[in-house]
């Protein structure tokens, strides 16, 4: 198991949380975390782990912090 911190932003917090520590079964990919949180990948914008952009197939490690932002496309 990997203990990671998850930070959600804007509308993703509704019905979920702002910030929480979660225990995930290793190997834990970000895409798996999104599925567990029931966040469709099509709605996801910026994905950061420890302040760096990652792809959804990134493997989370113990004590990583994962930030999930909604997709933003208007102007």
């Amino acid at each position, binding site marked *: 198991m990997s203990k990671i911190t998850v930070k959600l932003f804007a509308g993703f917090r509704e019905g979920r949380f702002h910030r929480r520590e979660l225990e995930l079964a290793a190997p834990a990919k970000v895409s798996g975390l999104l599925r567990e949180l029931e966040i469709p990948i099509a709605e996801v914008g910026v994905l950061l782990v420890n*302040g760096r*952009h990652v792809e959804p197939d990134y493997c989370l490690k113990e004590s990583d912090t994962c930030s999930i932002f909604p*997709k*933003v496309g*208007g*102007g």
Partner: protein
Amino acid sequence: MTPAATAALEAFLVARAESGQVAWPVYEEAARRFSLSFHTIEMVVLSRGLFPLRYQRQQELLGAAGQLRLLQTRAALVGCGGLGGAIFEMLVRLGIGHIVVIDPDRFTESNLNRQLLASLENLGHLKVEAAGERARQLNPVVEVVPLAERFQSLSAASHLAGCELVFDGLDSVADRLELSQFCRREGLYMVHGAVSGWYGQGALLSPDAGELERFYPGAAVMSESISEGNDSANLVMTVNAIAALQVAGALRFLLQDSKESLPGGFFLDLSGPELEAWS
């Protein structure tokens, strides 16, 4: 300009400067007398160590060297709607010397809640023409090239290639990704920004490392039916706040000595308010 002509203009400006600052009527007289553009006159003002009175309030923060850097900057603005209108206003007031504005659209009534250049009087008019007119009212030194076309056109592409900074004022993810790819191919810095309701994001992307795809990981699986662009809900405060962050990031970049350590990006949620930035 010949050295003699430059010397004559310099003498003219020095004689009419007050406390080292040159007021606008002097520009107009110099333009008439020497048949020069305002842009050229301002180059000489700043190179000579004088300062335009119009920029008095930013003199302490930018200095003549910084202000000259802005005057020499060739920027492009792709999209002249919400983000674009706000960005344009700031670039003109700052004194960015050359701005190519690219947008094929005309103003419609639903633009009025957030697009700075939109008014009841110019509904149906081309957005880029309104931009040109606004620049003439605020700061005629700024050279504006209005292109009422999509940025994918050949002529727009050739104008873009001559710019060092490309401001993102688009309203669709697909267009933005295409613009990012273009900027990377041409070696241009892209000042990304996007808004949705109460929040928005942005980043200054370098041509060698700044891939906008990282901001849209779900783009590959996005369906066409997702309303993610021009139908999205948008508020004027968010538009102005994100535009300000875009311009601030670009200004820091233009004024700094080295091009290293570009910030990674920011996300601003005005419902908090909350700002998250990363490197």
